[in-house]
C-alpha cells in the first residue's frame, strides 16, 4: 500500500451534538480526492454510524469521553480510523439484524454495523493498547 502523506485529524467528545461536525469533516476531505456524491454520502453515513455506536455502546452515553477521527488517502484508497477508549466491540459476536423481527418486538438499533459493512469496501476492528479502532476503507 502506498504511504499516506496527508492525514487529517479531528478530536471530539463522544456526544451526538457533534454528529454533523464529524460528518462534515469527513465529507469535506473526501470531496478533495474527487469521490462521487454517492461515495461521499456513503462515507458520511458509515462514519456517523461508527461514531454513534461509540457514543452509545463503547461509552454508554457518558459525555466528555474522547474520540479521535483520522482520515487519509493512498493512491487507491480513502481510509478513516475512529478511535475510542471505551468498551471494545466484538465483531465475532455480531449478528446482522432481522429487521422484520425487530419491528415486531418494537426493538431498534443494531443496524449501524450492518450499514457500515454495506457502505464501505473494507472494515476492520483493531485493539491498539487502550484504544479501540474501527478502520474503514473506500476504494477510489
Amino acid at each position, binding site marked *: 500500500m502506498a504511504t499516506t502523506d496527508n492525514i487529517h485529524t479531528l478530536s471530539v467528545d463522544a456526544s*451526538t*451534538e457533534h*454528529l*454533523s461536525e464529524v*460528518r462534515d469533516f469527513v465529507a469535506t476531505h473526501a470531496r478533495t480526492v474527487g469521490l462521487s456524491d*454517492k461515495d461521499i*454520502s456513503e462515507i*458520511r*453515513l458509515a462514519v*456517523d*454510524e461508527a461514531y*454513534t455506536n461509540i*457514543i*452509545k455502546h463503547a461509552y454508554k452515553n457518558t459525555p466528555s469521553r474522547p474520540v479521535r477521527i483520522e482520515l487519509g488517502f493512498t493512491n487507491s484508497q480513502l481510509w478513516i480510523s475512529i478511535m475510542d477508549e471505551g468498551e471494545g466491540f466484538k465483531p465475532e459476536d455480531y449478528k446482522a439484524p432481522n*429487521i*422484520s423481527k*425487530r*419491528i*415486531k418486538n*418494537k*426493538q*431498534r*438499533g443494531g*443496524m*449501524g454495523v*450492518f*450499514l457500515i459493512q*454495506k*457502505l464501505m469496501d473494507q472494515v476492520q476492528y483493531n485493539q491498539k493498547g487502550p484504544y479501540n479502532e474501527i478502520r474503514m476503507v473506500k476504494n477510489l
Partner: protein
Amino acid sequence: MKNFSIAKRQIEDISVLDISGELDAHTASQLENSLKNLIDEQSYRIIVNCSRLEYIASAGLGVFMAYIEDVRSLGGDIKLTNMTDRVYNVFDLLGFPTLYDILDDEKEAVNGF
C-alpha cells in the same frame, strides 16, 4: 443548533409530518416526540413527508421501527413519502421497502388510507 425540523399539518383525519434537514441520533428524539404526541392524541393515520429530508442515519429509521407496530395494531399506519433517492437508498439497504409503505407522492399515501 439542531439542523432538523418538523412541521405538522392535517388532511382531514390524516396527520402529516413534514420533516426537514438531517435525521440522526441527535435529532431523532424530535421525531420520536412528534410520533408519540400523535399516538397520544389518537391520530393513527400518519404520513411522514420526507421531501426536505436531506439525510437519515439508522437512529432515524429506529424511530419508525419503534412505533409502526403500535400504530398498525390501532388500525392506522405510518406511510413515508417523497423521499430523495439518497434517503430512499438507506431504507432500501435495510430492507424497509417490504415492511413499510414508502410512496413517491403524498397523494398516493392519502388515497391509501
